[in-house]
């Protein structure tokens, strides 16, 4: 080969190595700066609250003093529901999922590339009352209306050897006693009144009733995802209806908002739907896009849920529970909504 001499080649390689090392070091330094607290998302480029969003302003009205807790760029924040586009109080508390009810806030901290997530339970003064180390990827969290129970769901394992076979782990913490159930899979599961035994049971998406001993959740076994009613004291789960995921109980306790897999196949996406618990009648909401979230109720008539833009930014949308009206953006650049009634 009649190319440059060996010395020249080694010199060129060395210079290039130094230059490339400088580029890599710059990337590391920039990454570190972006990761500083309050420096935005981990990627340093998530949308801000001021980003324009297509969609009409929400036409919902709330008593003065009603607030909405949500995550803005992953930070715990609060906005007045009488002016949801208005100024937001943003804390420095970083969560992947959060929910607030009855003076208790649950926060699933993000699983970092190197760090496992935690469940943080905060009181009204934002003081950490409990912190629990968890493994997996944060998925859902809810607090009972009286603030006495916290539930969480994480994806565990399976995520790196996908092929559809993910698995979840769901637990419940009693905030006052500190007692906790690590996995609802231990509960006895009944279908059509008979005990159902299977190894492939997954439970996710708990929502609590006013009586915190009673809850609803999703149980999946043999490819069927069912709504179950759970009893904490009796340690039982009873199937009520199939093809219901991520239930959310209305404040009056009569209906369940949930995501319904199109054609019972999650690969086709989900429709935001409401189930009447007395009649088991389903009403599809006016939201035509696929919703992959556990919805929240703003009041007995309006739902809130997160939708992701193509660039990855989340917005909280709202639509009516009775299937009428048109979906609208409630809070731009936010997710994990939870309503705080006036005076709470």
């Amino acid at each position, binding site marked *: 080969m009649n190319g440059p001499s060996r010395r020249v080649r080694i010199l060129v390689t060395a210079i290039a190595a130094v230059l490339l090392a400088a580029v890599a070091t710059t990337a*590391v330094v920039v990454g570190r700066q972006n990761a500083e607290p309050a420096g935005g998302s981990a*990627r340093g480029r998530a949308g801000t609250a001021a980003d324009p969003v297509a969609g009409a302003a929400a036409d919902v009205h709330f008593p003065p003093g009603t607030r909405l807790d949500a995550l803005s760029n992953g930070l715990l924040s609060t906005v007045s529901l009488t002016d949801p586009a208005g100024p937001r109080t943003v804390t420095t508390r970083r969560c992947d999922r959060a929910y607030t009810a009855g003076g208790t806030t649950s926060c699933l901290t993000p699983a970092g*590339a190197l760090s496992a997530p935690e469940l943080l339970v905060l009181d009204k003064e934002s003081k950490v009352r409990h912190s629990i180390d968890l493994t997996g*990827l944060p998925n859902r969290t809810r607090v009972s209306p009286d603030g006495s129970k916290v539930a969480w769901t994480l994806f565990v394992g399976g995520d790196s050897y996908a092929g559809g076979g993910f698995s979840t782990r769901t637990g419940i913490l009693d905030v006052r006693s500190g007692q906790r159930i690590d996995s609802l899979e231990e509960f006895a599961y009944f279908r059509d009144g008979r005990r159902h035994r299977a190894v492939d049971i997954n439970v996710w998406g708990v929502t609590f009733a006013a009586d915190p001993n009673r809850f609803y959740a999703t149980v999946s076994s043999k490819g069927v995802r069912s709504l179950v009613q759970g009893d904490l004291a009796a340690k039982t789960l009873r199937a009520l209806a199939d093809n219901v995921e991520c239930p959310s109980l209305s404040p009056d306790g009569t209906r369940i908002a949930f995501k319904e897999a199109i054609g019972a196949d999650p690969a086709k996406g989900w429709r935001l739907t409401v189930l009447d618990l007395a009649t088991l009648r389903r009403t599809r909401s006016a939201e035509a896009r696929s919703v992959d979230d556990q919805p929240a109720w703003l009041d007995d008539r309006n739902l809130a849920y997160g939708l992701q833009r193509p660039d990855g930014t989340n917005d909280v949308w709202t639509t009516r529970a009775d299937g009428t009206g048109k979906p609208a953006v409630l809070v731009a650049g936010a997710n994990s909504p939870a309503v705080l009634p006036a005076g709470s």
Partner: protein
Amino acid sequence: MYLSTIGRTELPPDAGGPGRRRWHLVGGNVLALGTVSLITDISAEMVTAVLPLYLVLGLQLSPAAYGVLDGLNTGATALLRIAGGYAADRVSRRKAVAGAGYGLSALAKLGLVAVGNSVSAIGLVLAADRAGKGLRTAPRDALITLSAPEHALGRAFGVHRAMDSIGAFAGPLVALAVLTAAGQSFDAVFVTSFCIAALGVLVLVLFVRDHRQARPPAGTVSPRAVGRLLRDRPVQRLVAAACLLGLATIGDGFVYLLLQRRESLSVGWFPLLAVGTSLSYLILAAPLGALADRVGRLPVMLGGYGVLAVVYLLLHGPLGGPALLVLVVGLNGVFYAATEGVLMALAAPVLPERLRTTGIALIQSGQAIAYLGSSVLFGLAWQAWGPAAASRGAAVCVVVGALATAFLLMAKNSPERQGTSS
């Protein structure tokens, strides 16, 4: 036979007797290619190690969507590999085609930073990355076969694969170091990975010698010539043996998953199991390659099969605890060291030099596609019969595969080796 003489002029004359360890026969070009692979593999494994985390944590992709991205393009990559191999033979520019593959993969790392959160764009970038890998492997291995004398091919591939797996071993560790230093920024990992890959391309350009002959006479590299190659009995046997090898391996993912279930390991252990396998592979690749040169490549490869059967039996055997982990991970590396490079060393003499890249691409594609099939089959067997019966079944398949390989390659192999080592 088809022994390459080009490039051997730079090697010192074979002064040592047969008893001496003749590592110098491996040659500078193989070391240069090994260096390129080492650097490139650091870059590639950095991304592989953080990609699931990035997609699921950074972009909040659901695991199902990740599975779709992950399974993308395996078949297309195999086809591209054959096309790339054929192109490299046709224009007799193996280094250029390999370089294009390395360059494409390097650019894909920058692409990951550039495309942001769009899932479809990320899918395209990952496809480009894999296309680059498909493109470069066969011409690189062909260059290795042309850069070392035939009786030292086992060593040459052993040294190359050892350097390659040093990269695979270091990649995840470098990624973790960058993540720690950069406040867990994924972009920093991708940019660093690009810089390392770019250095690899530069080393290839500056230090690897191509083996260019005069353009092949018309007809020597043509679709018809490939057709003739495919009708050649020894080549058919080799491709069949490669497919058997692919069919016999259920994949590291399953091995680690079975270990994890048996020992209730937490998810965080997965990367360490892979690192352990790489470690065993990198330590043993060169010695086993040398052993293959001495006692014969086929016996070493069959020994590798035997070890794999033991691995599958151990997964539900009497042993447990840390001893099981170390043994399974170590033996898994032994299997790779005894089969991966050795198969290429076994193949090279059978493939005519003009069509060697195409031939290697055919063999590697056959193995890759068969492997894909065996993973699916094993997944089904696991569901139907449970993990214990499925892994024992896999061990039986390995033994059958080894017997069939012995039957396929025994007759044809040895006379050719003798005929070319003079």
